[in-house]
């Protein structure tokens, strides 16, 4: 792997609840990428979820309690990295606000916020990785998940790394920055509206001629994979980390295993 940073870093992986529960292979891909980028990786045991479901449902008290637990769990690492723009965005942008009335916790939240990164932007922006030396045959298109894009400015980084993947050609997805309609509980609270949004997304994906759809957030990926599968699309859906780590041996999201 080509990287500019030679100094080792002690990194904690925030595995995210969806990756932990639904797609552990993304967690292992993240570990592999971090180790290749010269990091020592630990997975703190006390983590569960970043608290975003509570926060976005208006349950501030539970969101704060869970945030405090996350802050405790990730004390003492140089960096905390999550394979998700949404969870990283929650910690970077919203944790400090959650404790605005508590100077001690606010300071700790700001400290974590400063150490917190989304996986691909961490590799590129912090570790200076320019080429992950992976190979993957196919045509891929990339969806910019909203939180990563708009809260953390993740746009160029995944494309830069994907362009170096041997055998992979990258086609731009029209409306790549338009929400896929997942939105956490939005997709089940307003299923018809969400369906319209993800239906348009599936049409756009199919129109690109790509055989693989990539993104950096498992929520969006499960939503888009579920729709593509329902409409009979042949496009396979993967987290960008799996391709970058060269770990595409597992079945794609929503794909059968035998």
């Amino acid at each position, binding site marked *: 792997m080509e990287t500019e940073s030679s100094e080792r870093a002690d990194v904690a992986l925030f595995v995210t609840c969806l990756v932990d529960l639904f797609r552990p292979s993304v967690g292992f891909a993240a570990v592999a990428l971090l180790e290749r980028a010269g990091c020592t990786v630990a997975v703190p045991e006390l983590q569960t979820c970043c608290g975003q479901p509570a926060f976005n449902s208006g349950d501030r008290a539970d969101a704060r309690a869970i945030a405090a637990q996350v802050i405790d769990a990730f004390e003492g690492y140089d960096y905390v990295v999550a394979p998700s723009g949404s969870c990283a965005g929650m910690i970077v942008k919203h944790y400090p606000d959650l404790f605005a009335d508590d100077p001690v916790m606010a300071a700790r939240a700001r400290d974590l916020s400063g150490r917190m990164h989304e996986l691909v932007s961490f590799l590129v922006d912090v570790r200076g990785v320019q080429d992950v030396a992976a190979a993957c045959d196919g045509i891929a298109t990339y969806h910019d998940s909203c939180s990563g894009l708009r809260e953390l400015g993740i746009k160029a980084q995944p494309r830069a790394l994907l362009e170096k993947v041997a055998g992979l050609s990258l086609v731009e997805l029209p*409306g790549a920055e338009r929400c896929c309609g997942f939105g956490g509980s939005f997709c089940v609270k307003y299923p018809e509206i969400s369906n319209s949004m993800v239906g348009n997304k599936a049409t756009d994906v199919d129109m690109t001629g790509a055989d693989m759809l990539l993104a950096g957030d498992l929520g969006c990926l499960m939503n888009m994979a579920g729709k593509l599968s329902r409409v009979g699309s042949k496009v396979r859906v993967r987290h960008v980390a799996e391709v970058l780590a060269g770990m595409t041996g597992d079945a794609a999201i929503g794909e059968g295993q*035998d």
Partner: protein
Amino acid sequence: MQPTTRQFTQNARDALANASLQSALGKMETGFVANRATAAARLPEFEALRDQARDIKNHTLENLDFYLETFEANVIASGGVVHWAATAEDARRTVLDICRSVDAKTVTKGKSMIAEEIGLNEYLEANDIEPVETDLGEYIIQLRHESPSHIIAPAIHVVKNQVIETFRESHPQFDPDRSLEEPRELLDEARSVLRQRFLDADVGITGANFLIAETGSTVIVTNEGNGDLTQTLPKIHVVVASLEKVVPTLEDASAILRVLARSATGQEYSSYTTFSNGPRRAEDPDGPEQFHVVLLDNGRSALLGTESQEVLRCIRCGACMNHCPVYGAIGGHAYGWVYPGPIGSVITPTLIGVDEARHLPNASTFCGRCEQVCPMRIPLPKLMRHHREKAFEEKLTPATERAGLGVWAFLARRPALYRLATGMAMRVLGAFGRRRGKFSRLPGAGGWTAHRDFPAPQGRTFQQQWSTRGGRRNAGQ
């Protein structure tokens, strides 16, 4: 206006099933969205201007009483009258009294969201005064007995064939076999009908994009010039505006004008930007004999000093709705009140109640595109979240949602228990789903599986596998 926000879910369903609406909404990305991007890219200082615009409005809101009183004093100095209206009812009655003072039969109106907010047309009609909308889009929906579905493009939900149909029905004075296929022909017909209406009107009513404290001026921006005719031809010009429209100086108004049209339509400036300063003076060749400003509060002053204060920076450009994927899917009427889209989801609950409008702040994916394009940098998702918090505190959130959230939060705060429960659940789901890789039906997940397959989990959780492998758990280990 009678809200239908309680039926938001049904409204949205109807909108999704409405083919002509869907076709009309489909054009938004290639129109407004692309045009704004081009206009913003052409102006290197666009982002700095947004900061400046935000700061001007924040300063004004911090000193709102001062600037409103200054505005009033300067309106009076230029020969006009200011009427303070605490409620929609006060504002309606004030306008009616002014109309009656000259025994008005018809009034022309420039487009005004405030007039929609106070239900002015229905009120005037009920009092035997005929209001005539003169903005082309407003005129079309008035003929169709509809309300605006967008704050700057009120008839965005209407397709051309529907306009042709409406004009044939509403304009029986013309040759029934005339051609109306060309947009130009529709425009010419509307113009010829409205011309006489402008001349006949006793009172002209407009909204205001800005009120300028230092000069006592009101400002409207339009692309059709109809606002100018509305306010200069009749004997009386009534401006109906909400109080947060005030800015301190002409300079401030110019600065904000630079972000307004670019954000709205992608124009550098709208075709007409008209400043009104009191009634006609002795030496003026034209203009109204009386100039009235009705300043509407209707709940806005109560937002000062609260977390919702930032919504008062809104300059009604519509950029948030143009860029909102939810608005793009369902259009404006589904929101059920005057202001649709993300700004509506923030402002509507503050004006008609979180209870009445509970759906609106929830029906957002928090994708953040609205905030990204808002020229006044209003943190729309954050303000929607405040409404969700209020609804949660007041226990307006549905019981099933609260219960589900409660169970999840209970587990999330107990990592060992959480891992035991989720580990077992994923193992079961994984075992059932592994072969096909997905579920087309899943108990309790009907909202998802009605439209999508549900991807099966891989099986053992990451945490279980990490433990099995003896993976590193702590710093410095």
